[in-house]
């Protein structure tokens, strides 16, 4: 048995949530990017999580770690704005904006950071339990 219980699941979740935070940061940073490397407006990226069965010696039961399953582009069309002065405007003066909705991104940001905090508190508790186990017999 591990010295620090539950640390693998917690560590994997912290990593997954951090990836999610990175992607959200990328979306917000590119909220007004109308031309990417491929010449198209930026497409919002979404993260999906998968659970993975934790194989551990001497343990029976379905314990799961988390991993990032896929980072995929959100295919929904971006808003089209009339702005003839814009360098990326087409012949009709319309500019296609990225499909990033700042409100959604902020909500996702809060959810991800709360989930990160929850997992941190699990890590803190695990450590406390491990230290307490070392104190047995003192």
């Amino acid at each position, binding site marked *: 048995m591990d010295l620090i*219980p539950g640390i693998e699941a917690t560590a994997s979740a912290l990593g997954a949530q951090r990836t999610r935070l990175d992607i959200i940061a990328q979306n917000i940073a590119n909220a007004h990017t109308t031309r990417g490397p491929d010449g198209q407006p930026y497409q919002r990226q979404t993260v999906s999580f998968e659970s993975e069965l934790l194989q551990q010696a001497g343990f029976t039961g379905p314990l799961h770690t988390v991993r990032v399953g896929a980072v995929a582009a959100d295919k929904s069309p971006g808003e089209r704005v009339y702005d003839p002065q814009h360098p990326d405007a087409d012949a009709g003066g319309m500019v296609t904006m990225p499909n990033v909705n700042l409100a959604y991104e902020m909500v996702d940001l809060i959810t991800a950071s709360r989930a990160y905090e929850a997992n941190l508190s699990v890590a803190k508790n695990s450590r406390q339990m491990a230290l307490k186990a070392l104190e047995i017999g003192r």
Partner: protein
Amino acid sequence: MAGRLLDMAVIRHEAIASNIANAETPGYRRVDVDPDFVRVLRTTQAKMAMPASELAASVVADQHARTVRPDGNSVEIENELLEMSRNTVEYDFLTDVVSSHIKHLRTAITGRNTS
């Protein structure tokens, strides 16, 4: 006996850690210590039928979760956090119990109060 319960507290902590880690994984069902374990523990203690060392707790998926979200996930993160605090306190208490057992043994061996 306290040692068995300590093991169970560790396993429960692992289950809670797994639940909180997967709080946003679609389709994940929350897990907990096998309820049979607690029942078997009670009956064996009542009858003194079997030494406690033969018992082992295991983790099973919780079939009776109160709510399941549309994505098939049944974790309620608030409950899990509360459950974790409770379990940690229980664990602290059990380590104290084990410590005091050891202290008693030492007193019996040496004849002195070593604390």
